[in-house]
Structures are given as structure tokens and as C-alpha cells.
């Protein structure tokens, strides 16, 4: 999230789209209610009428996967009705930037598309630069090649009639929604978006979010109280695990995983460190070499930087090793060993049958979990003959969260320390202990026996992980923050020199060094655990009156970066430092003392001195985004499995660059009369993810005991299905039984003149437990993904339903 949970109360208009917040992030609803009590409008746009819809002031139905139509329609509405926050758009976004003459868009494709490789050459999307490499600008926003005019031209096609025809959202409801939300374009009003998997789990997932980011920039809603782009993440520490980079493409702190074509550390730094000659651009990533060097030292404290870089494993240039690729390779027999650590891919991965078959190709698996699950026990799953499965499985029992000490980071970037209550039950152990013991054992083997390139294994800094036997979360938290490896003298902003002794904690990432004299496991966590103590364990609710007004709680736990609570907050004030919304500022300029008050300012300097979007090279909010794999502007494409053969915006039916696998093509269908119903997957309050941590709890399972599917009364009548009877859902990928819930809350969509029916399924069940509870929704979902993130399209695919 750019903002945080409590901040929702400050909003004038809360849009919930791609999310069922009331049911899946229930406690956050407190803050939505407080906004409503203060007069805010809450709008829910969703394929189903849920508890979120019932609490909203406005509900607009939309067909799964048609979000860019609806959002594109809002962009057009804003432009046509002149509702932008003009000063903000002109000075804080790239609306005025000129785009290359070579850029073009025609019939659903941007310039530079290569049919054979199914990839874009993005060079024609670049900005037109001046002699300093700074984008040329047209401050009148009239030049046909300025971003604003390109934006206007792009969304001309997205009139409300076309949008309504493809999304199934009634036109009058769309217009009422647009009117209400775009009222937040007024300088002192803010609107916020709460989104989740309903936006990410699509082959256009990133562009869904981009479309909303464009809207938020046009309306001046970024960086302000009650504004922002707020991802409601799904797991207690998925924010933290992403920050710590348990993903193929990044290393901790959102730096790129080294690639083979960046041969040396210098090559890496050159390729990954943006430079800007614009004196007003803070261009924070210019400091990347300091963060990368400090990370290398946190891994390999005794090695010099070039050696440490050499030891880091490299991806090939352009290589994709994301989830869907991983399981595709697993099916092809690439992996001998596999760790399913606190994960249940046999139920959570798209195309469960593909995933489960892939697991059978492994020589061995390590399955760390609290309960038995569909992954560790795949060898005795439905239809599986254990005698035919060679895979060894080591099930390692781990501790429950309340049995261990450490920190987790919520969706609002709050790093929160928690303590151990009961001891780990039986012989279960905290994951940290297990990892530590395994690492030490492997090192022992490499010390005793010869083996492949032992250097990085033996050189790994495990000293800071514990005492040689027991994992110590405090030691690791301090390493993640970082400390000085040598006595270091640093001159502060006031000109005063301070000596930081070797071993002392680095107080802030501004003090991290590129020369190897500091180590830091993750620069965005620097300042979280300093010599003053563990900031994430703080429970101080002291606030100044201004902080209390917007609910910042700066003394409660710690948020990254540097305890900033609302990021991009520089954009919350005008060029003179005056808040756009004086009744709910997150920043105020104290002219007398020449400092910023309320929140931690995003990028220092006096008002107007710096562009506010400091993580962007050019310092501006990106309305036009030339770096993504599927285009600089969101464009409408149908989900890969869709119920139509065409849509009104272009002849390009689907994303031309979506991630997919040729071998799975025979399992995908579009407009196939055998599988005519759109299916979408979602969650219920009582269960969580694949249900491994909820299906075993009687209090929860008694409320939600079995796999069900929801359908409209119209669909039920069509198929002769009655409420409560068992049905079978199926498509070429798999089959699933479910208890039918026939409800008024789902209605058919009128799409391009034809009714399109929706079936909804929760994805919490698995064959292991409870018996007769049902199996995974992912038996039906396709292994196709977003071209930027690789996230599978599990929110819109085609199925058939019939009586069991």
C-alpha cells in the first residue's frame, strides 16, 4: 500500500474493486465505516454482490476481466469533463512529457510488436529527450505528442456505451460511479482504491492497476491522506516476504536479481542505476550501488565486493523463472529436489492436475508445514497410486506464529514485532531454527567432502543468524537493518561529522556505503533496528494533533521506509508547501525552522525544490509508463479464456504477450459451447488461502464445511439445478464437485447482446481434510499469466456445470 489501513478513514470516496474487503480483510472495515460516518461515499464494483456490496453506498456489477474497459471509461470521463487536478497533473505527473515520434498504437497493438517472439521492442515508446537526457515537456498539454494528448486519444474509444456492452455494467450505473469518484479531483478531496486479487490475477493484471494509478494521478489522489493505491495483500507477511525477495526476479530491497550479461559488479551497477541530469529530480535509485554493496556484504561479510558478486547466482538475460514456468519445468523433470516451505502448491497453483503431476517427477521434496497438506501428501491423492510415485517426502513440522518471536510486515508496510507465547508444540520448530540447522549441516558437509564450487556456501555469513546452534531473530533483524563493518566518519546535513564505530547499527539508509564498509540485508528496513532499539516493537500511541487527525501513529511499530506512513507525500502539498487538503494534511512546511512536519517527508528539500515521485528517474508520477511488457498505457483485452469472440475496442482479442505454455493449449477454450460459463475464484471470511491453516480448525470448518459454488437463479434454471444439490464443474483441465448455492446475488451479464453467466467458487478446500470437504478450485484454473508479473489468471476462465 502507498497509504495504510487506518488512513482509509480520511477518504472522501473509497472505491473497492478487485476486492471483497468486508469479507476478506474484515477488520479493515472499521476504517471504511469511519470514513462513511464522516460522509465518504463507498463504491463497490464487482462481479458478485457480496457483503462489501451490501455495505457500500453504490454497487456496480462488472464481468470478471472487463476492468480495463470500466477504468478506461473513467479516464475518458475525467478528460471529457475536465475533472483533473490541473496543477498536480502539470507539475507532479509526466502528462507534459513528449513521447518519441516513432510511438504509435493501432488496433490493439503498440508499436514494436514482434509476432514471432510475441514480445515488444519498447524503444519506440521512449520519451523525447533534450541534450541532457531529460524528457522534453509541453506545459500547455496541447502538443499531440505529449502524454496528456496521447492519453486522451487512446481512451477516445472507451465511451460508456462500449464499456457497458463489454462489461455488462449498466450504463447509468457506470456514469453515476464515474461522477461520484471523479469528484475527488477537487484539490481538497481524496479518493482511494482498495484492490486485491480481482485485479492481479489476470493476464492484464498489472495494467488493471496501472489504469487506476493513472486515474489517481489525474485526480491528484497520490500521496494524500485518504488517497493512494492500496493493495490489500493476502498473507500476514507477504509484504515482508516480498521485501525480503523470495522471488526469482529480485533480491532484498527491490533490486534486480543479477543477470549473466552483467558480468561484473560495475556492469550490474551501470545497468541498474538510473541517472538524471534534472536538478529537481531526486532519482533515489541513484544510490543503488550503496544498497547492493551493503546487501552483498550481508551475505558474504569476509569477501570483497567483486568476489561476493561473482558468488551470486545469475539468471540468463531475459530468463523467466516465475511460478508457472517453475512448475512447467518441474513437469518436464528439471528439478530433482524441491522445497515446499510453508506453501501448498498442489492446491494453490493454477492447473492443480498439472502441478500435482509435476510433483511426481521430483526425486525428493521437503515439506515444511503445521498440518498434513495436499502437497506433502500428493503421493496418496485422489487417483494416485503410491507405488508409482518415487518422490521421497520429508515432512518437517514447524511452529505456529504465536510460538515464535520475530517481525512481520502488514499491507500498510508496518513492520510489527511479535513474541513467543507457548513453546513450539511437540517436536515442531520455528522455521528460522530449521533453516539455520539445515544451512549449518550443508556447510559441514562441504567442509568435510569435496563438492561443486563450495565458496559461496562456506562464505555465507551465518554468524549473524544465531549463536552457532540456535537461530536468533534479533541478530538477523539487526543484520537486515545493517551495521558498520569499519569505523566510518560521515558528514551530516548540518555539516557536523559523526564517527560510527564498527559494529554499530546504521541509523538510516542515507549512511549506507558503496565501498563495502557497511552491511545491510535490506536497505528499505534500515532504521528499523538501530542502536536506540527495535523500532518494530514500539507501542507508543503519542501523536501530535495533526498526526492524530489522520491517524498516522508514528510511534506504533515501524513502517518502511524510514517510518514514513504515507508514501509520495511530497505530492500532498503544492509547490509552495501548502497542503492541497488543509483539513487533513500529512505534511506541512515549517518555514521558521525550515523543516517538514507531520509525516516523514518523501525526499528532503524545501517546497517546490524537488519533484515528488522520488523513486522514478524523472521524478514524476507515470501516467505514461514505457517500461512494462504489454504497453505504456492499459489497453482492453479479454481474459485468455473468454465468452466472446470480439470486443469493441480493437481486433486484438487477448493480450498479445500473455505468459502461456504451448503444451497446455489443448486445455484452453474460448467460446467453446461445451464450456460456456465464466468461472471466478475467491475467498470466504472463515477460511484462508488453500485452507491448510483453517480447514483443521473446528470453529471455522463448522461454519464453512464444504466446497460450494454460487450461481444465479437464471443459470440454475437453465441447467435444472436446485439450491443445495451437488454439481460437477468441469473443463479440459479438471473436474470438481461443489454444493450449488443458487442466489440473487449473482446475475447474468449482458455482454455484446448475449447473456453471460458467472459461476463463483471459493478456493479453500483440499482433499486431505475434511473428508468430503471437496478439492481445490485450481483444478479448473489455467496456467496462463500476466506478461509482467507472471501471476496466473485465476479470476476468469471457462467451465461447464452440470448436476452430479
Amino acid at each position, binding site marked *: 500500500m502507498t497509504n495504510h489501513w487506518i488512513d482509509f478513514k480520511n477518504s472522501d470516496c473509497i472505491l473497492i474493486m478487485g476486492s471483497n474487503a468486508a469479507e476478506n480483510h474484515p477488520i479493515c472495515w472499521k476504517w471504511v465505516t469511519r470514513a462513511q460516518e464522516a460522509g465518504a461515499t463507498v463504491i463497490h464494483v464487482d462481479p458478485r454482490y457480496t457483503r462489501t456490496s451490501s455495505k457500500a453506498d453504490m454497487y456496480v456489477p462488472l464481468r470478471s476481466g472487463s476492468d480495463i474497459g470500466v477504468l478506461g471509461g473513467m479516464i475518458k470521463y475525467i478528460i471529457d469533463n475536465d475533472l483533473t487536478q490541473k496543477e498536480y497533473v502539470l507539475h507532479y505527473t509526466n502528462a507534459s512529457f513528449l513521447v518519441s515520434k516513432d510511438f504509435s498504437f493501432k488496433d490493439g497493438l503498440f508499436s514494436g510488436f514482434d509476432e514471432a517472439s510475441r514480445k515488444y521492442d519498447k524503444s519506440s515508446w521512449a520519451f523525447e529527450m533534450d541534450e541532457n537526457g531529460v524528457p522534453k515537456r509541453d506545459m500547455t498539454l496541447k502538443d499531440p505528442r505529449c502524454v496528456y494528448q496521447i492519453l486522451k486519444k487512446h481512451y477516445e474509444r472507451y465511451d460508456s456505451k462500449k464499456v457497458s456492452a463489454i462489461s455488462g455494467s449498466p450504463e447509468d450505473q457506470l456514469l453515476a460511479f464515474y461522477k461520484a469518484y471523479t469528484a475527488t479531483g477537487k484539490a481538497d478531496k481524496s479518493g482511494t482504491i482498495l484492490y486485491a486479487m480481482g485485479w492481479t490475477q489476470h493476464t492484464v493484471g498489472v495494467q488493471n492497476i496501472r489504469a487506476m494509478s493513472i486515474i489517481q494521478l489525474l485526480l491528484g489522489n497520490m500521496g494524500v491522506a485518504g488517497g493512494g493505491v492500496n493493495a490489500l495483500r493476502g498473507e500476514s507477511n507477504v509484504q515482508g516476504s516480498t521485501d525480503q525477495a523470495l522471488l526469482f526476479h529480485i533480491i*532484498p530491497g527491490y533490486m534486480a536479481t543479477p543477470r549473466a550479461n552483467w558480468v561484473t559488479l560495475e556492469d550490474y551497477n551501470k545497468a541498474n542505476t538510473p541517472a538524471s541530469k534534472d536538478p529537481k529530480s531526486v532519482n533515489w535509485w541513484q544510490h543503488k550501488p550503496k544498497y547492493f554493496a551493503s546487501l552483498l556484504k550481508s551475505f558474504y561479510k569476509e569477501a570483497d565486493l567483486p568476489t561476493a558478486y561473482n558468488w551470486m547466482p545469475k539468471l540468463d538475460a531475459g530468463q523467466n523463472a516465475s511460478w508457472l514456468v517453475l512448475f512447467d519445468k518441474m513437469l518436464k523433470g528439471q528439478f530433482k529436489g524441491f*522445497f515446499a516451505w510453508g506453501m501448498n502448491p498442489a492446491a494453490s497453483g493454477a492447473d492443480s492436475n498439472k502441478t500435482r503431476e509435476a510433483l511426481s517427477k521430483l526425486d525428493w521434496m521437503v515439506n515444511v508445514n503445521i498440518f498434513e497438506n495436499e502437497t506433502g501428501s500428493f503421493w496418496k491423492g485422489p487417483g494416485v497410486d503410491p507405488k508409482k510415485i518415487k518422490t521421497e*517426502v520429508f515432512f518437517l513440522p514447524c511452529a*505456529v506464529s504465536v*510460538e515464535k518471536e520475530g517481525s*512481520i510486515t502488514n499491507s500498510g508496510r508496518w513492520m510489527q514485532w511479535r513474541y513467543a*507465547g507457548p513453546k513450539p508444540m511437540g517436536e515442531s520448530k520455528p522455521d*528460522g531454527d530449521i533453516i539455520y540447522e539445515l544451512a549449518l549441516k550443508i556447510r559441514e558437509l562441504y567442509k568435510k567432502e569435496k563438492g561443486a564450487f563450495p565458496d559461496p556456501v562456506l562464505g555465507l555469513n551465518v554468524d549473524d543468524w544465531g549463536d552457532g546452534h540456535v537461530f536468533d531473530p534479533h541478530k538477523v*533483524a539487526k543484520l537486515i537493518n545493517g551495521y558498520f563493518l569499519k569505523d566510518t566518519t560521515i558528514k551530516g546535513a548540518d555539516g557536523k561529522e559523526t564517527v560510527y564505530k564498527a559494529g554499530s547499527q546504521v541509523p538510516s539508509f542515507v549512511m549506507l556505503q558503496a565501498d563495502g564498509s557497511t552491511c545491510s540485508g535490506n536497505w528499505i528496513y534500515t532504521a528499523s533496528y538501530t542502536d536506540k532499539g527495535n523500532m518494530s516493537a514500539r*507501542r507508543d500511541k503519542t501523536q501530535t494533533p495533526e498526526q492524530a487527525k489522520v491517524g498516522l501513529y508514528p510511534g506504533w511499530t515501524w513502517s518502511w521506509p524510514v517510518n514514513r506512513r504515507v508514501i509520495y507525500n511530497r505530492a500532498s502539498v503544492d509547490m509552495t508547501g501548502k497542503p492541497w487538503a488543509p483539513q487533513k494534511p500529512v505534511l506541512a512546511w515549517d518555514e521558521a525552522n525550515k523543516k517538514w512536519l507531520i509525516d516523514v517527508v518523501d525526499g528532503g528539500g524545501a517546497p517546490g525544490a524537488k519533484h515528488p515521485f522520488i523513486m522514478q528517474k524523472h521524478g514524476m508520477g507515470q501516467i505514461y509508463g514505457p517500461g512494462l511488457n504489454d504497453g505504456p498505457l492499459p489497453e482492453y483485452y479479454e481474459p485468455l479464456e473468454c465468452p466472446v469472440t470480439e470486443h469493441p475496442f480493437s481486433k486484438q482479442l487477448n493480450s498479445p504477450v500473455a505468459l502461456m505454455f504451448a503444451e497446455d493449449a489443448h486445455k484452453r477454450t474460448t467460446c467453446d459451447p461445451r464450456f460456456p460459463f465464466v468461472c471466478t475464484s475467491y475467498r470466504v471470511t472463515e477460511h484462508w488461502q488453500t485452507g491448510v491453516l483453517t480447514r483443521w480448525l473446528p470453529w471455522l470448518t463448522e461454519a464453512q464445511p464444504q466446497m460450494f459454488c454460487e450461481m444465479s437463479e437464471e443459470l440454475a434454471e437453465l441447467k435444472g439445478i436446485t439450491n443445495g444439490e451437488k454439481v460437477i464443474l468441469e473443463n479440459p483441465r479438471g473436474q470438481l464437485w461443489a454444493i450449488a448455492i443458487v442466489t440473487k446475488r449473482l446475475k447474468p451479464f449482458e455482454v455484446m447482446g448475449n447473456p453471460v453467466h458467472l459461476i463463483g467458487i471459493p478456493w479453500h478446500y483440499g482433499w486431505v481434510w475434511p473428508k468430503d470437504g471437496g478439492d481445490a478450485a485450481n483444478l479448473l484454473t489455467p496456467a496462463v499469466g500476466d506478461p509482467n508479473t507472471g501471476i496466473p489468471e485465476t479470476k476468469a476462465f471457462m467451465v461447464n456445470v452440470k448436476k452430479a
Partner: protein
Amino acid sequence: MKLGRREFVKLTAAATAVTAFGGLGFDLAPTKAHAQLMSLRKGKETTSVCCYCSVGCGLIVTTDEKTGRAINIEGDPDHPINEGALCAKGAAIYQLAENPQRITKVQYRAPGSDKWEEKSWDWAITEIAKRVKKVRDESFTEKNAKGEVVNRTEGLASVGSAAMDNEECWIYQAFLRSLGLTYIEHQARI
């Protein structure tokens, strides 16, 4: 006066059961007698954070000083986000920790077997370490097809976990990367 949770609890405990409910028209004497016969358990309170969604609700965990097991887990009223409230899942965390169906010993499934066997930690860590080393040694690649240095193993892969603490996630990715893994993924990707 502003009544915090602890002040409220102290007040109600101070009043005797009979007088607090006096005037309700029924006799609580036998209940009071029974209540006095029930053994009290002494617990230690610690704070935690819910392990389910990403709201990050605060918890108060009470652990029995004798048995070392949780007696009660409820919302932390001092936490500014949840203010003591919990949804159904958070409210059920007690049953996650105190669950007789938890696996509490290492289990091993042999090739072709139809059952689990109980093993010791020492055995499991040693056997896993041996296998990691074997696969790494057999699949470690110094240079790719282009002759560029890659120093990786593509014979091992890992998924997990958004359910681990930051400190655990960090050492896990460092551990995997030090072995040369590139196929590292988890919940954030799906």
C-alpha cells in the same frame, strides 16, 4: 475516568458474583460455590500479530505457566488498527496452536510407500543436507550456453513462504541463493 480493559476487569472481579448480579431474580449461590471449586490457571501474557490476512491485527496470547500451552488468544485492545477486534479466523487462532491434529514429529515418506514414518530431526536434517549437496554437485553450472558465469543450480527449486517472519524469510533467501538457486518463488507470485 477513562476505563481501559484492565481497569474494567479489575472492577468486575472486585464485585462479588452475587452482588453484581443481585436483583436479577435467581440465586447464584450454588454457581458461586462451583466457580470457587474450579481451579484457576496462571497465565503469562505476550503480544503477537495475527497470522492470516495482511491487516496485521494485534493479539494478546495467554500461556499457561504450568503447561506452557496457550489458554486464550484474543484481540489486543491497545492495537490502533484492530482495537481488540478480530475476524473469525483471528478469533480462532487458539485452535491453530492448540490442535491435536498438528504434526509434531518429523515424518518421512519413502519411494513407492503408502505411509508416513516417524523420524528424528537429526536424521532428517542430515538426509536432506546430503540430498541438497548431491543435487547441487550434480547440477551446478559455472557458465551458461553463452559462456557467461552463472554459478547456479537449476536442479533445485523452492516455493514459500509468506507465512514466515521477516528474519526467517531473509535467511531463507540467503541460504537458497548461497546454494545457487534461481528458481525461488512464493505466494506473492500467485
